[in-house]
């Protein structure tokens, strides 16, 4: 079981080799990075099968920090939750590593890319496998750093560099909340280790402290998982290379917030208010992002907003206390969203960097593998029976409904409709109809090379079967039985009400399925059957269309509120400084000048006279004394020796 230490170590070794010798390795970097990721994945599977047997591990490898009574180990926790996350991270990570060989082929920073990818894998695995909050925070910051580095991977491009900075700054706000949460945890429970904290959880402390801690932790999760209002960095993050978007900004890093909330479930369970906040934020984000996705024209942006929206679903699940469902959706989402991004990447690769869907169309014939897998992923994302997304999303909505979160549930339903609509808008625009780009590009359309296509196929297969295999029947599938020990407490507190009726679950599923099908149908109507309808609708609802196209002007709003206001406030302060403070300083300066003229006379006549007299005396003396400084070291040593002699005599005889 201690083999698990290899899982993060292997990517670290890969990172070190590529990082240190990258200049020398150059185009062979993948020969280092992929074995590192692959072996890591292999070991992860081995550990997983041990964990299926019921084995868990809480291993303090060594003591990291010991400050006063704060003791933090570098420790590894292997339990069903971390195992699931570990598998998702290593497996999807491996596929994206492989995909990147083709996608990044010929880039002059090839080695740097794989260096960062491996560092990311390492940090993410530290985050996931940590057995205490501080180490998790280390990984949390590590993935943040990698995200920054990879968004700004093409740093010569100003927009990429700016996007990286934006992601970093926005995440900082969330991290501040997370850190405060950690401080509260430590001051309340006196430890940061999961086992110790959860063992010390006691309802008698009052809901207030739990609400504070969990809300602060959730602020961290909002930043990392791009929830309202801290989601703004994620769409911009699409400036990074597409495999990065797939790995970091869809499958793994952004789900860290969900993982953290699920991990902290014993705390959240005691804070009903926080849970409600989580569910509401998730639901609002889900619909909000979905509406923006309706009108975006950049293929990656659509998928990015879809990611934000799906993350919202996960938080609805977490807020409803159905952590298992949230993490389940996390896993299935990792497959189909990574697939969507990789498919988008494949399209972009084929079109030489074109990302505007208005210049695409009819790609089905040219790239059948990409098209088929993209279709599967769209269906999965839209929640169509029996693909992966259906099972996990319905579970979340069902749980939310059962929990009495009616409005979030309704919002989720609306979101499901919108999701299906925008996914198929995208699909129809890109893959069906006539090609709308220039002739030159049309000429070079091609299916992606095998090392890009295979990951698509693997992920496509997973998007189809993962849901049925692991999640059927809902709430009692293989997956749920595996992770049940972690979330036992959550289910107990809910009581038996949840498992009321399978029939109502079927009704709910049918409802959301029909909503989704409606969305697909509308998309078909608008973009295949009668394309002119779409633009007519846009003309008719100018206001709404512009609002959505400009993403509700949120970026501009932030600019106006935080940045411009900040600038104006600074200018005000500057004015205050210039007039009031400087005035006072100048006034006192003037006063001092007057006074000093008076004291100058005193100094010149009386004080200086005295000083000069002393100086003359000293000068006279030093002319004779300086002869002692011979400049020869050994004279000085002799003096020292004499001094020692004197000291010895003193101690012995006096």
């Amino acid at each position, binding site marked *: 079981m*201690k083999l698990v*230490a290899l899982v993060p170590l292997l990517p670290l070794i890969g990172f070190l080799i590529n990082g240190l010798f990258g200049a020398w390795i150059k185009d062979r970097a993948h020969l280092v990075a992929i074995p590192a990721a692959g072996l890591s994945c292999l070991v992860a599977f081995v550990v997983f099968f041990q964990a299926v047997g019921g084995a868990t591990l809480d291993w303090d*490898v*060594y003591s990291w920090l010991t400050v006063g009574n704060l003791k933090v180990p570098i420790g590894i926790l292997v339990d069903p939750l971390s195992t699931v996350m570990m598998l998702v991270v290593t497996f999807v990570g491996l596929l994206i590593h492989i995909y990147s060989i083709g996608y990044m082929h010929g880039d002059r920073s090839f080695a740097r890319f794989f260096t960062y990818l491996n560092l990311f894998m390492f940090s993410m695995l530290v985050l996931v496998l940590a057995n205490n909050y501080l180490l998790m925070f280390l990984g949390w910051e590590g993935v943040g750093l990698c995200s920054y580095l990879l968004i700004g991977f093409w740093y010569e491009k100003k927009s990429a560099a700016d996007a990286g900075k934006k992601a970093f700054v926005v995440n900082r706000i969330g991290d501040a909340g997370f850190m405060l949460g950690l401080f509260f945890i430590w001051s309340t429970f006196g430890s940061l280790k999961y086992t110790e904290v959860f063992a010390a959880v006691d309802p008698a402390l009052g809901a207030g402290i739990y609400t504070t801690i969990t809300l602060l932790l959730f602020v961290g999760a909002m930043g990392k998982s791009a929830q309202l209002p801290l989601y703004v960095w994620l769409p911009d993050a699409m400036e990074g290379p597409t495999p990065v978007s797939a790995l970091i900004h869809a499958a793994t890093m952004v789900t860290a917030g969900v993982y953290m909330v699920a991990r902290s479930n014993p705390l959240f369970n005691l804070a009903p208010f926080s849970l409600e906040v989580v569910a509401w934020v998730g639901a609002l984000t889900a619909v909000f992002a979905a509406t923006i996705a309706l009108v975006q024209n950049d293929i990656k942006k659509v998928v990015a907003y879809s990611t934000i929206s799906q993350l919202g679903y996960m938080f609805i699940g977490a807020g409803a206390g159905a952590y298992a469902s949230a993490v389940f959706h996390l896993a299935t989402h990792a497959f189909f969203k990574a697939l969507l991004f990789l498919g988008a990447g494949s399209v972009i690769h084929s079109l030489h960097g074109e990302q505007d869907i208005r210049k695409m169309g009819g790609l089905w014939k040219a790239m059948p593998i990409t098209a088929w897998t993209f279709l599967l992923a769209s269906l999965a994302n839209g929640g169509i029976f029996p693909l992966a997304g259906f099972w996990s999303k319905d579970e979340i909505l069902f749980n939310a409904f059962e929990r009495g979160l009616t409005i979030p549930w309704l919002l989720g339903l609306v979101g499901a409709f919108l999701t299906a609509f925008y996914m198929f808008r995208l699909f129809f625009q890109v893959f069906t109809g006539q090609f709308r780009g220039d002739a030159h590009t049309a000429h070079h359309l091609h299916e992606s090379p095998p090392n890009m296509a295979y990951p698509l196929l693997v992920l496509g297969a997973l998007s189809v079967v993962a849901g049925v295999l692991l999640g059927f029947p809902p709430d009692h599938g293989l997956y749920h039985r595996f992770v049940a020990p972690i979330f036992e407490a959550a289910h107990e507190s809910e009581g038996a009400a949840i498992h009321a009726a399978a029939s109502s679950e079927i009704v709910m599923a049918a409802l959301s399925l029909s909503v989704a099908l409606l969305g697909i149908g509308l998309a078909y109507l608008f973009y295949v059957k009668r394309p002119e309808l779409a633009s007519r609708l846009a003309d008719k609802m100018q206001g709404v269309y512009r609002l959505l196209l400009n993403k509700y002007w949120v970026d501009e709003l932030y600019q106006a509120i935080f940045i411009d206001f900040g600038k104006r406030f600074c200018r005000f302060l500057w004015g205050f400084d210039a007039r009031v403070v400087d005035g006072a300083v100048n006034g006192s300066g003037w006063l001092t000048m007057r006074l000093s003229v008076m004291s100058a006379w005193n100094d010149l006549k009386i004080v200086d006279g005295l000083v000069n007299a002393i100086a003359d005396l000293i000068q006279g003396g030093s002319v004779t004394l300086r002869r002692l400084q011979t400049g020869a070291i050994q004279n000085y040593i002799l003096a020292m020796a004499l001094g020692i002699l004197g000291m010895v005599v003193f101690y012995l005889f006096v």
Partner: protein
Amino acid sequence: MATVSSETLMEQFYNAFETWGLPLFVPQLIVMVVVATAVLIFVAVSVMFMVWWERKISAHIQVRFGPMRVGGWHGWAQSIADGIKLLIKEDIVPEGADRLVFALAPMVVFAAGFAAYVIIPFGPGLIVSDLNIGVLFYISISSLTVVGIIMAGWSSNNKYSVLGAIRSAAQAVSYEVPLVVSILGVIMTVGSLSMTRIVEAQQGVWFVIPQLLGFLIYMIAAIAECNRLPFDIPEAESELVAGFHVEYSGMRFAIFFLAEYANMFTVSAIAAALFLGGWHGPLLPGWLWFLLKTYFLIFVMMWLRWTLARLRVDQLMNLGWKVLLPLAFLNMGITGLILVLRG
């Protein structure tokens, strides 16, 4: 078996002296002298063999026969003849030389090489003294050679020999560092500096397997320590005439020669003990296994000498400081990490 019987023999020997009423240090002194003489004879014989062997190996590598006449069978007595020739030559001390230092230098070099034999474990119990600082003793004693070389080079009053001595010293000092660090992996694994303990720890697996990197670094550094090709810059015949011992001839030269080959034997024996399992091996008696491994390594060194070309000074220093040393540290770090992880 051998150990037990020799111990009892030793006790009888000591008891005999006790009954004769002589103080304890008399038998101790006798044992010391006997052992020292035995080692000295072993060194002399093994060096003569090695010299003859190297001439034969070099000859065969160059498709020649080498010495064939002296002694009859394949010129086996050639080294003895050479030795006698060197002994009866005139003892020349160059003009302007520092006579005292000139005379002292070969002795210092030889004494250093000779002293290292103290800790070579020829077999179970077959070791002159199983010091608990064994390896460290070898490392510290071997550094004395450099002093002798500098003494020889300086006292000859010849610029070539001074240059050779300085190069030799620089090389020895540079390669001593990776040599020591490469051994650390083994020492960390065993947790002892004693040669016997280290060999015993290789009952199952020889350290050459887990410490392959350390072994390679050790061998390269050891070849450099012995000033042999491809690291023979200090003696580079074509540039420096013959390095620090240009001015030496006759008996004094013979001592240098002896010390050089004795050194070769020492580094190979240490390598055999540290990495190749010492006396462990099937069927054959332990001491034979040990000698076989040692002579195999000596053969490798000779083989390399007649195969590779000489390195330039800057290449030599680069290799030592920028390649071997970092690798040795890497080896040490990885070993430590594994030891810590294994608990």
